[in-house]
C-alpha cells in the first residue's frame, strides 16, 4: 500500500511540476522579415558605327518598356521600403553619352527621372562609369506608381566637330540591376 501511495505521489508531483516556463509567445507579434532582393534590369551593347545611319550621326536613340506590373503589386506597395537602381556604363568610344531614364505612371505622367554621363574614352581603353539612384520616401512613392520607363541615350557633340561614321571603333555597354529592400510584417 505504501508503495502505491509513493508512486501516486510521485506522479502527482510530476504532473504539478510540469509546466511551460520562461517563455513569451507574444514576441512573435513584432516580427518582420527583411529580405533584400536583387534583379537584373537592362543591359545592352552598342557599336560606335551603329550611330551612323543614312549618312548622318544619330543624335539620340530611345526605347521604352511598358506594362511594368511589378510596382503596382499590392505586396510591393505594402512592403518595399527602399530601392536602388545600379547602372554601369563602359565606354570605349571617344564621345560622351548621356543616359536618361524617365519613369511614367499609367496615365503617362512623368514620375521620376534619372540621368548620368558615360564619359568618353580618349585612348580606346574602357572608361567605366558607375551610377546608383536611390529611391526612398517621396521618390519611393513615385516608383510605386510607375508602369513604364523610357530610356534615352544621347550623344553629346564632339569637341572637335567630328562625327561617328561606319568606320568608327569602340562601343558603349550598359549593365543594370535593381536592389529591393523589403520589410514584411508577418
Amino acid at each position, binding site marked *: 500500500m505504501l*508503495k*502505491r501511495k509513493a*508512486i501516486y505521489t510521485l*506522479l502527482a508531483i*510530476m*504532473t504539478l*511540476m*510540469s*509546466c*511551460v*516556463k*520562461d*517563455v*513569451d*509567445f507574444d*514576441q*512573435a507579434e*513584432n*516580427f*518582420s*522579415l*527583411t*529580405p*533584400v*532582393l*536583387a*534583379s*537584373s*534590369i*537592362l*543591359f*545592352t*551593347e*552598342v*557599336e560606335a558605327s*551603329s*550611330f551612323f*545611319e543614312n549618312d548622318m550621326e*544619330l543624335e539620340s*536613340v*530611345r*526605347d*521604352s*518598356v*511598358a*506594362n*511594368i*506590373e511589378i510596382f503596382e503589386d499590392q505586396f510591393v506597395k505594402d512592403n518595399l521600403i527602399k530601392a536602388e537602381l*545600379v547602372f*554601369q556604363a563602359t565606354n570605349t568610344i571617344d564621345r560622351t553619352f548621356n543616359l536618361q531614364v524617365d519613369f511614367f505612371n499609367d496615365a503617362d505622367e512623368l514620375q521620376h527621372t534619372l540621368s548620368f554621363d558615360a564619359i568618353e574614352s580618349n585612348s580606346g581603353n574602357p572608361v567605366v562609369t558607375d551610377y546608383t539612384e536611390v529611391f526612398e520616401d517621396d521618390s519611393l512613392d513615385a516608383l510605386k506608381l510607375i508602369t513604364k520607363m523610357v*530610356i534615352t*541615350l544621347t550623344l553629346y557633340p564632339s569637341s572637335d566637330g567630328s562625327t561617328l561614321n561606319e568606320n568608327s571603333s569602340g562601343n558603349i555597354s*550598359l*549593365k*543594370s*540591376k535593381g*536592389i*529591393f529592400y*523589403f520589410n514584411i510584417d508577418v
Partner: protein
Amino acid sequence: MRYKRLAFVLIIITFGFVGAQNKQLLFGFNDIPQSALINPSTTLKNDLFVGLPLLSHVHATVGSSGASAYDLFADDGRDFSSKLQSLIFRLDSNDFFMFNQQFDIFSGGFSYGKGIEKDRYLSFGMYLETDAIVYHPKDYAVLAYQGNADNIDRIFDLSDLNASGEVVSVLHIGTTKKINNKLTIGARGKIYSSVFNVNSTKNSGSFVTREGQNNFLEHTFNLDLSVRTSGIKSLAEDNNTDFSKDIKTIRKRMLFGGNLGLGIDVGFTYQATDQLMFEGSLQDFGFIRHKKDIESYTLKGNYTFEGINPLFPEVGNGQTAEEYWDEIADNFEDLFEVDSAANKYTTWRPLKLNGALRYAFGKKQNKDCDCLNDDVGYINEVGAQLYAVNRPKRPQFALTAYYYRRVFNGFRVKATYTVDSFSYKNIGLGVSTHFGPVNLYVLADNLLEYQNLAKAQSASLQLGLNFVFGRNK
C-alpha cells in the same frame, strides 16, 4: 454529440502535453490490450477485452528534431528576429517537425483455440490516426529571410520543401498463431479510409543568382514542384458555412466513404527460454489509393533571365525593348503558372519496424507457503527495443532500454530510456492498473523535460481505459 466533443477535448488536451510516434512504453507492455497493435503476434493473457469506446487508447505526440519552443520563445530579452534567424540557419533541411495522434474508436479481442487451452488471440478495432511531418524548408526560409542580394552563387535547393499530412481511419483485425512452444506468429489486416491527404514530397529544382555574362546578374530558375491533395477540394469549394455538414462528410469518409487502402502488420514472438524472448514486427505495410476528390498542383519549368536586351531598335536588331519585355513577362508567367489536375495517386503509409529483446527475472515468492507461484511468474523484466519508421526523406530510429516490474497484481510499471532524433535522454514512465475488470493506463515520456515543457523537443502521452475479463488465467 457529447462523445464527439469529449473526443475533441481529449485530443486538444493531449496535444497540449506536447515523444515521438515511437510507442516504446506500450510495446511489450502486455497487460495493456493495445500492445497487440504494435506486434500482432502478441498473445494477450485474458479471455476477453472491450475497450471503452473513444477512450480505450488515446495517443498524441509532438516532436521537433532540432529545436524546442524555448529556443524561439525564451523570455531572455533577445530579439525574436535574431533568434529566429539563428534557428533557421542552425537547423538543416533534414530537421523536421512532426505530429501524430491516434485514438481508438472501438476495440476488442478474445482468446480462442481448439481444445481447452485457448492459445490464439483475436483482436480488432477501429482507430483514427492523424500524422503530419514537415521538414525544415531551409533554403526557402533563407531566401525569405535574407533575399538573394547577399546570396550570389548560392543555389537555393527547392527540394527543401517536403511535407506530408493525413487523417486516416483504420479498421483492423488480427490474430496470432502458435507454431510451436517457442514461436508465435501473428498478422493484422487493415483497411484504411483516408479522410484527408496532402503531400508534397517529390520536389526538385533550384534557384540561383550568379554574376552574369552580359549583365551584373543572371537568374536561373529550375522548378519542379508539386502538391497532391485528396479529400480537400470538395470541402474547400462547397462554400457552406454549416460546419455540421462538413462533419457529416468527414464521418462518411471515416466509414469507407473516402479513398481506400489496404495494409498489413506482421510479427513474431520467440520465447527462447523461460526467461529470454525476442519479438519483432512490421506495422503498416500498406497503401492508400487516392481516386476521389483529388487535386494536384504542379509548377514546372526552366528559365534564365539576365535582363532586358536589346535596347534601341534604331541601332539594334530591330526588336524593341518593349517587345522583348513582353516576351520576358510571358516567359515568367508561364514559368510560375500553377497547373492543377485531378491525377490519381497512391501513397504508402509510414512503415514501422519494431524489435525487442526481453529478459525476465526474479520469481515472486509466496510468503505464506514459501513456494514459487507459477501463475505469477517473473516479476521483473529488462530489455532493449528498436524502433524505425520510414519517412519521406529518410528513416528515423529510436533505441530504448527499459525496466518493467509487476509491483503487484493490479499495478504494473515500465520505465524507459530512449535515444532518438529528438533527445539523448528521454525517460518515460508507464503505469497500468487493474481494479476488477477495469484496466486504466497512462504512459508518458520525456519526463525530465516536464519541469519545463517549453524546452522539450518532443513529448508523448498515451492513456486509455479497457474492460478486461479472465486476466491471469
